[in-house]
């Protein structure tokens, strides 16, 4: 019931008009360059997200869709060494086969992006993108490379729609900065 209401609301709203609570946190780009900073940030985000029915130590699958813009090779650095398997795949394959806990959205066609965002709704899947600095297109976490360094925004709307549990401290980091 609630999910269908969300679906109706989402269908009516154009992607650009999606209510967003944009949040940012600045991360120093130290020694290892941007790729390392991205991996660290993605790992940090993953560590603050809880999947229903999964325990903190359980293995996760990250599906990389499209080409990452900010990282040359994706290898998230999760505190506590949580096992993570990486899979490079396509939007169609994701929707057809599932099996992804995290979707990393790189450079994509807007149609694919739209399809994936629609598909993710109400599923326990975390979406992170590095191709949407303003965080307008429905991903939960959006990485952005600015002059001050690497930062991320949080789309609270997108998070609220799904069953994932995100540690409020992460949300607060962004919220207070905005």
């Amino acid at each position, binding site marked *: 019931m609630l999910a269908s209401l969300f679906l109706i609301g989402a269908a009516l709203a154009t992607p650009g008009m999606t209510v967003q609570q944009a949040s940012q946190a*600045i991360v120093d780009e130290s020694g290892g360059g941007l790729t390392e900073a991205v991996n660290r940030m993605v790992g940090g985000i993953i560590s603050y997200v809880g999947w229903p029915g999964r325990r903190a130590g359980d293995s996760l699958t990250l599906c990389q869709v499209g080409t990452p813009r900010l990282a040359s090779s994706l290898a998230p650095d999760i505190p506590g060494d949580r096992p993570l398997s990486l899979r490079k795949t396509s939007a169609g394959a994701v929707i057809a086969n599932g099996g992804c806990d995290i979707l990393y959205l790189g450079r994509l066609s807007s149609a694919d992006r739209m399809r994936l965002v629609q598909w993710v709704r109400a599923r326990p899947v975390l979406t992170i993108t590095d191709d949407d600095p303003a965080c307008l297109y429905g991903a939960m976490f959006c990485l952005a490379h600015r002059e001050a360094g690497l930062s991320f925004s949080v789309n609270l709307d997108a998070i609220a729609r799904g069953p994932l549990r995100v540690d409020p401290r992460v949300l607060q980091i962004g919220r207070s900065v905005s």
Partner: protein
Amino acid sequence: MSDRKPPRTTLQKLLSRFHFGVTLFAVALSGLAIMLAGVAALRGYADRNIELAAQLGAYGVEPALVFRDPQAAREGIEPLTHIPGIAQLRILDDRGALLTEWVSPQPDPAPLLTRIFFPEPFALPVRRNGSRIGTIEISGDSSTLLDYVRIGLLAGLICLIVTGLGTVALARRFEYELVKPLGEIASVAHDVRLHRRFDKRVQSLGIAELDRLGGDINALLDELQGWQGHMESEHAMLAHRASHDMLTAMPNRAAFDEQLAARIEGAATRRSRFALLFIDVDNFKAANDGFGHAAGDAVLVALAARIRAVLRRADFAARIGGDEFAVIAEPVDARADAEELALRICNAVAEPVALTDGEDYRPAVSVGVAIYPDDGGDGTALLTVADSDMYAHKLSNRN
């Protein structure tokens, strides 16, 4: 007593000094123990306080460390800046680089206290899923301790004063309890020694040892009193024996001589006269031989009693020889008075004496009279006159 000895102190002073020392020692010792315990407890609380603050801070800065975000770290430690007693906060990332730092704007009120309680900052590692992602370092300061220490010191001081006063009061009381009975014993001993008041006794005392001492002194006094009484009666007896005739209990020759000299002196001063009567038992030797010495003694006793019965209160009678008695009658106005007294004595002794073997003996005496100062100015002269007068009578009686 002796000048060579060191100056004496009183028991009270000694006890007072001793008590003061003991009290001071006890109070200082307990005060020190309480202070040490207080400092230990205080340190425990202070450490716990800092540790709790560090744990709170670690929770707050954890995402900031994950994302290496100084701004978020500042916000993460913001709640800690309102906790009193924190001087400095430092957030270090996993490589030990400083992420953010906060220093209390308030100056440390007591740096010494801080050095004692927080010699080095408390460091708590921040962990994320078991891996160390950074460190939070907290330096405490003395602002929260200062009030506690102040109140503690004040309370300690008040306790010290109260304890001191209480102990001094108790010591006084104890001294009084001890010194008073000792003083009582001393005063009794003093009284006995100085005033020979052997009837004085130490009252029953509240302290067992002193009571025993008092009891011993009382027993000693009992013995002393006994000796004293015995000595006095012995003395009196000896004095009586020296001046009295054992048989008739009359004063003897020595007492008589003394008395006569005193009477002469008195009469000379007053210019009055007295009579000396010399009494000799007639044929006493014959009675003694005829009836035995016991009978003779009985006769002498009876005679003495009869002579005494005739005399007035101020008159003096003595046995001055085996069967010789002397009487000083004073005052007498004329020779006639003395002659009359002599006659009365003669009549009084003339009654028969019942001897032990049932026989009666009828004694008789001859009395000679001498008057002072008419017949002589000294005892010898008077005795000579009285003696010769008696002889004259005896001869006339025989005839």
